[in-house]
């Protein structure tokens, strides 16, 4: 909690005036996407009418990303990274502390099984430590799986 290093103060004291003349301005945005103005009605994008992968990505962001990362090199989260999860044995991310329930589930993650998991996690793996993340909309569950299929080495 000590102030910035001594040199900062001394510098500012002795060369404050010349420095003030050559201050560097931060750049303006490189890209600015204005989706809508404040107060404008929300942009409504019905799930069904869009590409299911894009819809799944959105739904993943809203329901899963707080706990799960989607990339291979991501740091540990609350849940295991879901990169390459389709076709993967349950509880197989090295170093992740799975529950005994998940370790003993004997599952291999296919699309329908993930849909079942996120419909009701405790239903398919009783005792799992995935305490949240249930998605009530079947279309959204399906879309999430379409998105998960795009994650993985084969892309």
């Amino acid at each position, binding site marked *: *909690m*000590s*102030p*910035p*290093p*001594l040199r*900062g*103060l*001394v510098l*500012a*004291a002795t060369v*404050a*005036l010349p420095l003030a003349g050559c*201050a*560097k*301005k*931060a*750049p*303006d*945005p*490189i*890209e*600015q*996407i*204005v*989706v*809508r*103005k*404040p107060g404008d009605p*929300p*942009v409504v*994008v019905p799930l069904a009418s*869009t590409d299911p992968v*894009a819809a799944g*990505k*959105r739904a*993943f*962001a*809203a329901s899963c*990303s707080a706990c799960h990362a989607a990339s291979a*090199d991501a*740091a*540990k*989260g*609350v849940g295991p990274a879901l990169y390459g999860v389709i076709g993967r044995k349950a509880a197989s991310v090295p170093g992740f502390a799975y529950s005994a329930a998940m370790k003993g589930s004997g599952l291999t993650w296919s699309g329908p099984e993930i849909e079942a998991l996120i419909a009701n996690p405790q239903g398919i793996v009783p005792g799992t430590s995935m305490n949240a993340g249930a998605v009530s909309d079947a279309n959204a569950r399906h879309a999430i799986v379409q998105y998960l299929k795009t994650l993985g080495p084969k892309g």
Partner: protein
Amino acid sequence: MNKWTRRGFIGAGVLTGGALVVGVAVRPGNPVDKLRGDVASGPGEELVNAWVKIDHDNTVTAIVPHCEMGQGAHTALAQMLADELDADWAKVAVMQAPANGFYVVPDTAREFVAKWSVDAPNWIEPTYNGLFTQVARLADVMITGGSSSVRTTGQHTMRMAGAAARHMLVAAAARKWGVPEGEVVAENSLLSHKASGKSATYGEFAEAASHEHMPQTPPLKDVSQFKLMGKGLKRLDIPAKVDGSAKFGLDAAVPGEALRYAAVKAAPVPGAKVEAINAEAARTMPGVLQILNMGDFVAVVADGYWQAQQALNTIEASYSKTDGDLLDSAMLRARFAKALDAAGDAGGKSLARRGDAVGALKGAAKKVTAEYQVPFVAHAAMEPMNCTARVAGGKCEVWTSTQVPLMARSAIAKALGIGAEDVTVNQLYLGGAFGRRLESDYPVQAARIAKATGYPVKMIWSREEDTRQDFYRPADTSRFSAGLDAGGKVLGWNNVFTQLNDPPGSWDVAHYDIPAVSIRRAEADMHLRFGSLRSVDHSQQGFFIESFVDELAHAAGQDPFEFRRSLLAKSPRHKAVLEKVARMAGWGSPLPKGTARGIAIVKSFGTIVAEVAQVSMQDGRPSVDKVWCCADAGYVMNPDGFAAQMEGGIIYGLTTALYSGITLKNGAVEQANFDTYPMVRMDEAPDIEVAFINADTRELGGAGEPGLPPIAPAVCNAIFAATGLRIRELPVMSHFA
């Protein structure tokens, strides 16, 4: 009192409504003004710093230039001012000084720019103080840091302003009543004259007092006359924090305008640029207003914070390459080792050299060597970085929690290309800072976003962003070798490490009686942004030095307390603190098997602190059950607040010692949220007992930081005593996974 307590010129004025205002002013005609050019000083005295206001309703308001981040500075400073003023504590209020460039902290500048001037002869004082007020203004020194509020601003400014105001009130009453000044009693915000039975409130005389002569060096109270100083008065900020009415940075509102929210993500490797973003999914998500690639970070602005954060999570970004892209923690450690190898026994930059350490080691009966390592540490303030900003008509106003409002103002002005006078920084309570809020990166980000949107925006960092975009306590490696004679006396001490930030002398062992000492630094670069974390370099140096001293005690076959005690033969204040903490802890008394005590002593920010930690091994893991702490800060102004700071320093330091470890992979920080960057919680908090010694009322030490440095070594020394395992690398728990 001696010259120590005389600081600055006092000026006085009347506010509309007749309130008396007393402050420290720069005298017109001060030669420094001419030297420094354009600093305004109109006819008469300019009020530079106004510290006390007395209203007609008899309320005394202490205007303090420091922020309140839980450390209790507002209360302690008001207490010091009110005591000298003989004010009624029940009618004292505190106000945070506005960050307008007038409320600079000359004494802080003085402390850090030129320590020598503190002992300048009396006649030169005016010039020096004027100079330092200028320096402070030019350098934006309105800083809360360095454990300095009480010992600098409190001692040299608040007390003097209170004493001067008291003198003026007495003079005004004496004049009106036609009695000698010496017969007027000022007490509890009341003026009275016994013989005539006259009495009045301070408020009634506030205006008249402002026309009285202003003493430049008002006599200050002796300790024996203290009424409020030295008392554990209740904190003034707590009621609002309990009933929820206190406003922190996160609570900021822009008067009369609706707020939108921004979530941000900076390039994960420091120095990288955001080259391109894919925002396909984000632009269709609920609430989203704008998506911005700011070059160094990506921002999403939405109606709500969570909407902004969720949309941000879907954005894919590509970043430019940097030299740091491949760096990981092992490579960094190898880099430190290479620098240390190159420095060897005598190389690197010499920081302290007394006698011939290398020679002393050659002739020693026993030689002890050890290498210690610490990782990067993040501040992890509970209130994540945030700032609310509005930019309109070439002006910018921000609402935020910061330790450096004036530096934030300058940084924003610079980033937006406008004048500092066009930027207003409104300060709110800080939900923790620990040095993180000495940096102005987040106010600048918010201002840039608000400029792009054109409407007010509250930017809030996610916990992950807070952990990954910190200014870290640097990682470091420190190597020691020392020689002992046959009787266990230390003959020589040779130490070299790589990182140096602040404050000077954190590495020194001058308090220990060692004839030959060589301390050096072998510089090694790193790419992470480093900054000041509670106790700064003392946080790692305390661990290095006090662990090694413990190793020497065991090598000498001596008790670690007795060993330190004899080394402190020439440092009586250190020795007294050490002895007291040993007594408190019952040092030497038997303990159950698997339980042991460890001791350490560190002086930092002017305060000597010794701690004993009692650790028990439970299921193979150490548990810190009890901590005793004794401190000598010269004089403790508020024992309750002081003890709270020691306890806070100990708990914060325990987190650092036991858990904190920021590691790198591919140049980026691996940890993100509290699951990967844990902190000590309630159930692990030890019982803490704090005592203090008031050994010098003239020069005070700080409170915010000094409690921290001894805890890591005290715990590690206790673990050694309990298990025989010497922890030379933090965090502790990485050894018990």
